[in-house]
């Protein structure tokens, strides 16, 4: 037998085709699959959320808060009030809560028994609605707000999220997506980064509609409480401007400079890609709504940070404490 010495053949053992093309096709496949799954999930959640009665939501999430160790619930009301009035943050909570309570009275068919405010120490201006009727505002937001009307618009916006049950939608979507990720074995995986980009993109459409709806709900409460809609524009132009989003603002300002009614492709893309519609878009939608409802866009605004208001607040706090003690 003769030994036939041959060099290894490259052609049989290796797949043909470009690896970059293969990677590209697979990435597109993942993005499309995740988009379809998350959109289907979001649509199911949209259908299911209205079926959850607010009373059940309040019961369940108050129980969760209790389990999480909210010991203040057990403290007598007077003690709690004394504690709140004794600290600057406590005073601010009382003041924000009183604005919220007044606004909430204009929401006549509110299915929620009450709303509670809490302050989160954070420099970034932000506010959020949590299931069960809790509204969180950051200390950074309270520092930037100049008038009560501005703060009322933000609180009204969060009430608008309760009206739309948006907080449950967000929570439901997050939970559903986590379950799917776990089922696919993607949790903590490098592919999860890719998949979460696609799911965030899908969620955007739902979030954007919710933000605009909450704005319109808020301005109705604002007009009922103060008789005009002043303060809304300042929220977008000054209060919610975050230094880290300068890019989006840059695009917005550029559009304003050009005095162009129709946004260019870049602005449209930036608007679509951001969770909240660009400030300018929301202002335009609000202005149109205010005009159509024949409310005054300007009017006298109540101060928020003046010393006089702080004094009256301390007095209010004292009065409330007195009432509770009586």
């Amino acid at each position, binding site marked *: *037998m003769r*030994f036939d*010495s041959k*060099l*290894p053949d*490259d052609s049989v*053992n*290796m*797949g043909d*085709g470009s*690896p*970059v093309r*293969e*990677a590209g096709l*697979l*990435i597109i*496949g*993942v993005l499309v699959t995740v988009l379809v799954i998350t959109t289907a999930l979001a649509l199911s959640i949209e259908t299911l959320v209205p079926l959850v009665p607010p009373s059940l939501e309040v019961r369940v999430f108050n129980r969760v808060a209790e389990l999480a160790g909210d010991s203040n619930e057990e403290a007598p009301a007077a003690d709690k009030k004394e504690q709140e009035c004794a600290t600057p943050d406590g005073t601010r909570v009382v003041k924000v809560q009183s604005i919220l309570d007044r606004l909430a009275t204009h929401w006549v068919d509110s299915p929620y028994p009450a709303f509670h405010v809490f302050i989160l120490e954070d420099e970034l201006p932000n506010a959020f609605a949590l299931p069960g009727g809790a509204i969180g505002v950051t200390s950074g937001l309270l520092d930037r707000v100049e008038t009560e009307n501005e703060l009322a618009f933000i609180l009204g916006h969060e009430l608008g999220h309760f009206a739309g049950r948006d907080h449950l939608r967000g929570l439901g979507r997050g939970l559903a997506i986590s379950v799917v990720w776990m089922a*696919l074995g993607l949790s*903590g*995986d*490098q*592919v999860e*980064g*890719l998949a*979460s*980009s696609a799911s*965030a*993109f899908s969620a*955007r459409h739902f979030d954007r509609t919710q933000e605009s709806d909450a704005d319109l709900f808020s301005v109705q409460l604002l007009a009922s409480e103060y008789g005009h809609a002043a303060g809304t524009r300042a929220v977008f132009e000054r209060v919610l401007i975050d230094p880290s989003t300068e*890019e*989006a603002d840059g695009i917005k300002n550029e559009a304003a400079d050009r005095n162009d009614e129709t946004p260019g492709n870049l602005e449209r893309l930036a608007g679509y*890609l*951001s*969770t909240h519609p660009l400030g300018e878009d929301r202002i335009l939608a609000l202005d149109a709504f205010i005009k159509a409802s024949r409310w005054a866009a300007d009017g006298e605004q109540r101060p928020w940070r003046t010393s006089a208001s702080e004094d009256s607040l301390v007095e209010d706090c004292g009065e409330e404490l007195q009432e509770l003690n009586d």
Partner: protein
Amino acid sequence: MDPGLINLVFVLVSLLLAFGIGEWIERRHYKSIRVREVECKHLPTVTLERLPVPKGWTYHSAGMMTGHVVISVDHFKRFVARLRQLFGGRIRTYETLMDRARREAILRLKRKALDEGYHAIVNLRIESSRLASSGRKGKGTAGVEILAFGTGVRMKKVGA
């Protein structure tokens, strides 16, 4: 810019970088493999247990020969393979990797055998083993070892 978009751009840029570096290393390795395969081509290497002995020759001595290589996967290959696990199909990015590793292990074995004066390798076998990593709760793969082993044989002329 939107965080989701930043995330996507980061994933794609890191993949492209990993692909560029991985591709450069792979091409360089294949070039070296092909040169050395030509150099070692004359050494008969077979999977038979016994090589038919040419007339007038007999076995002189035999020895165990091994050649091994430990390889790791680059970010691009691992990422594409992970996506393949979702959709199924050939993991082509691993095919070139394993091909390089197998050929490199055999080359090392042949080089050693030539240096030690063996005339042939018989009973060539190839084994692989996975090296676990502490990543992903111990489920990660740090790399794969490919071991080529066989028996090197020396011949001598009958009566020498």
